[in-house]
């Protein structure tokens, strides 16, 4: 069981009434705290976060004091943390626009089409577009509450509501660091260093999660919500841009340069498995919930239905593994999971495609997927994924052995790209490839001839300019560097976001799997 699952089991039975009895000792500077009915679209399954001391969110102002790059800190602290995180988030990270986007053109129009107030906590948008999740306490005062929400997806959205741990984590940082993980997580702090946990945190919004009360619906897509599919964690982290260093970027305690370490390769593999598991868990949750929630078209592959009907096209040349013309579940990047399974050498690794194809069986008997079969088939996939996650976490991604693994992943990614795959899969495969390649370079674990290197650089530059599966490489920034304040007006920012949403639709339309396969073959040849 994952930390979320454990947590939820412990908390499911705790109702709103109990949560409302907030500990007054932890009252916010603004005054009283009360439980705001923050509901998912499916309130009945809402889980309440009830950390031991009734933890709540308190906003960025408590973090920015130290994490804005302005304080005086000892070098050993600076080695471990950037201390510029807040500025990176504020100036460059789109998570800081998450709440504002609800009031931008698209958000407004969605509200009109759906007939709902997108800013009202009860509507559920803020579950992903801000920090207010799972009924954690929000200030009673409307203005205070809105100020808190207005920060969008800020520090505590990923690191956990902080009233319980903010003091220990900086007042006695040394002992906080040495505390047992269980104690820290029990205080509501989220251990995003764990590859499984961080994948769950990211995917809870970028894919959706019943346990987090974050559920995208087809209704929302139909009203204009941008597509969510195709989340590859580390390439998305690059795009954020990230506000942390990986272990190979941190100097060793004795001042020597860092040793080779392949954290990111590991994260790519683990997160791909977590994505599949969470996608299946989400579909199972909808299927279990009955006719009000199933069929939930948002769980299905968008392009199983929303494709053009042009002939000849690449779609007709595929060998489908199910009855033609039926929708399919969107289960994530199967080729990447297959690579992870082969490396971890788990049972069934040779047959991942067949196993995931089983998730299409429910659509043979019922065009929208037999819910009972989805639950039944899904359970097997979930437990298989959990075993694989454990196995991957225990693997060694350090030093020379890590380099071997990363090189193998790079080769297998190109091999797996030969089969015609859909746009979202291609985008994840390419994202994974570029992350693993970059990490090999950073660790000096790949040597190319001058001509190959020049050819590769040229190819990557070409791809980043033109091809649809590339994630705006210009957004990648060196860690800890404070990006300049963009000084964008909210309107300009909204326009920029809107443009990138429109691009997302266009690029999907332009995608051609043969061009993708050629590109990956070329990259493989140059890095071989």
């Amino acid at each position, binding site marked *: 069981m994952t930390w979320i699952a454990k947590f939820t089991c412990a908390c499911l039975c705790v109702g709103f009434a109990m949560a409302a009895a907030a500990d007054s000792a932890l009252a916010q500077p603004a005054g009283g705290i009360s439980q705001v009915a923050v509901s998912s679209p499916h309130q009945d399954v809402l889980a309440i976060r009830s950390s031991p001391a009734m933890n709540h969110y308190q906003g960025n102002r408590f973090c920015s004091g130290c994490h804005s790059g302005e304080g005086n800190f000892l070098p050993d602290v600076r080695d471990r943390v950037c201390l510029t995180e807040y500025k990176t988030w504020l100036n460059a990270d789109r998570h800081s626009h998450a709440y504002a986007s609800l009031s931008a053109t698209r958000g407004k129009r969605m509200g009109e089409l759906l007939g709902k107030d997108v800013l009202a906590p009860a509507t559920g948008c803020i579950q992903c577009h801000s920090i207010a999740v799972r009924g954690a306490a929000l200030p009673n005062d409307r203005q205070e509450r809105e100020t808190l929400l207005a920060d969008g997806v800020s520090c505590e959205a990923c690191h956990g509501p902080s009233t319980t741990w903010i003091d220990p984590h900086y007042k006695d940082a040394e002992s906080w660091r040495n505390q047992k993980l269980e104690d820290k997580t029990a205080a509501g702090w989220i251990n995003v260093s764990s590859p499984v946990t961080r994948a769950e945190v990211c995917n809870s919004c970028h894919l959706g999660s019943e346990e987090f009360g974050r559920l995208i619906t087809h*209704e929302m897509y*139909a009203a204009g919500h941008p597509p969510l599919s195709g989340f590859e964690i580390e390439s998305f982290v690059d795009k954020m841009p990230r506000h942390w260093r990986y272990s190979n970027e941190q100097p060793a305690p004795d001042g020597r340069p860092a040793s080779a370490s392949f954290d990111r390769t590991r994260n790519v593999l683990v997160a791909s498995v977590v994505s599949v598991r969470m996608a299946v868990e989400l579909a199972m949750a909808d299927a279990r919930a009955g006719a009000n929630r199933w069929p939930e078209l948002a769980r299905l592959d968008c392009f199983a239905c929303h494709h053009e*009907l042009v002939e000849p096209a690449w779609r007709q040349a595929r060998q489908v593994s199910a009855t*033609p013309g039926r929708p399919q579940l969107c289960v994530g990047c199967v080729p990447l999971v297959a690579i992870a399974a082969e490396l971890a050498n788990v049972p069934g690794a040779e047959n991942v495609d067949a196993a995931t194809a089983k998730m299409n069986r429910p659509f043979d008997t019922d*065009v929208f997927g037999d819910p009972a079969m989805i639950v039944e088939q899904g359970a097997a996939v979930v437990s298989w994924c959990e075993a694989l996650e454990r196995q991957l976490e225990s693997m060694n991604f350090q030093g020379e052995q890590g380099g071997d693994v990363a090189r193998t992943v790079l080769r297998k990614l190109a091999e797996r790209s030969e089969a015609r795959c859909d746009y979202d899969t291609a985008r994840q495969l390419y994202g994974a490839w570029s992350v693993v390649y970059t990490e090999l370079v950073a660790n000096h674990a790949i040597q190319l001839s001058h001509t190959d290197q020049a050819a590769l650089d040229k190819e990557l530059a070409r791809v980043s300019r033109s091809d649809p599966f590339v994630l705006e490489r210009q957004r990648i920034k060196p860690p800890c560097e404070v990006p300049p304040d963009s000084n964008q007006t909210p309107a300009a920012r909204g326009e920029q976001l809107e443009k990138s949403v*429109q691009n997302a639709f266009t690029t999907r339309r332009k995608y051609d799997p043969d061009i993708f396969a050629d590109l990956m073959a070329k990259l493989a040849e140059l890095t071989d």
Partner: protein
Amino acid sequence: MMNNSVNITNDSKQLASRRDAATCSRVSPRREWLTRAVIAITLISIAHAKVPPAAAQRLVGVGSCTSVGCHGGTRPESIVGSEYSIWVSQDPHARAYSALFDERSVRMVRQLGFQPAHLEHRCLVCHSMKHAAPADQNFDVISDGVGCESCHGPASQWIGEHYQGKLAPQAKERLGMWDTDQLLVRAQVCVECHVGGPDREVNHDLIAAGHPRLQFEMGAYFAALPKHWIDAKDREGREAAFDARLWALGQVSTSQAALEQLARRAASGHIWPEFSEWSCSACHHDLRDDAGVQKSLADREGLSGRVIEWDTWNHFVTRGRTGELRRAFGLKAAASDPIDADVESLASRMRPMNPDRQQVAAIALRAARALETLATELEQSGNTQSNLDTLILSLLRAKTSAADWSTAAQTYNALATLQETRLRPGARRDDRLTNAVQRLYDELAAKQRTPKSYVFDAEQMTSHFQQVGRHLTTNEDAR
């Protein structure tokens, strides 16, 4: 058609056996049994106007008709006597069987898990003469494709008599020769395959595997068919509205066949819902916001993301314009037509993702029966040109005339029929209208090659329709 009775009986047996297997219904078992029994009995009673009740008839095969002295003449330009030669050299129906061996068919059966297409009953029912005599196992005959007897009826009983003089309608009926002199019989023969019939369907599985979508429109198909009869003679004695009547009978028969098919799908153990019952573009649309999808959804129904628009091709006239159709052909019409009401009610019942089988089957059957009656009345009706103009003007001005490619194409076909009617000898020429219709065609066929691509431009289409509408109005005023 004759032997369809066998098929329908089989259907009813299947219905009866599935009746007991039905579970998970909110309708009480007793009530459900009753509803299903009623539907089953009605399905059995779907008799086809063209199907004469005769004894076992067998196919004799195209080879029996091809004698040089009969229909296999070598002068296709003179038509009479060379019917076979025209069919075999020009008519795509002659290649229906060989199409089962092409690359697409091979790919289709592989994806569907069928046996090779030329052995597969589900393919042969339309791609050979199995449609005319399903029980016939003569494979020499089957390899002829859609041959003479597919449309004229299995000939074992009448081949010996038909060349001894023209058979009277009663004799044809007795011997099982289908009376294709009647326009309604033609429409009904075509829709059996081109829309669907008992045991004959192109469902979404087939379409997804590569079968072209069925989009039958009698007027256009009739115009495109290489005629193995003298067209002028065919029109002799029928008034100037030959094309308009054929179009109208096609519309009504298409809707009727599609409703019967819907009833069979809803009442039987057929997979449900059947995706091909829905409008293609309801799902197969671009996701770009500027494609106007959200706008059109919001305009029409409000937007929920959990409803799917019903078929917009097969019920083009019968969904809301049946009354006007009646008036156009001089038939009595009530203020609100029960067919319009039933078809509209089906359209709303088919919008949820899991339409109620029993209700849908019952209403579809009722509407199909009413359409069958209407078709007979239409065949025997008179009509006046101005009534037809009014109907077409109303189709053109309908708010939904350019809602998607299907309705736009159907609207165009209706217009083209009007134009055909006008171009016949004796009809008044109207070059401006001809040009406007031609521009419409260019727009639909050349620029907006939907439904295959995403690029259907509803606004552009609407403005073209308005333009043609203005011409028509001017003409009306001038009269």
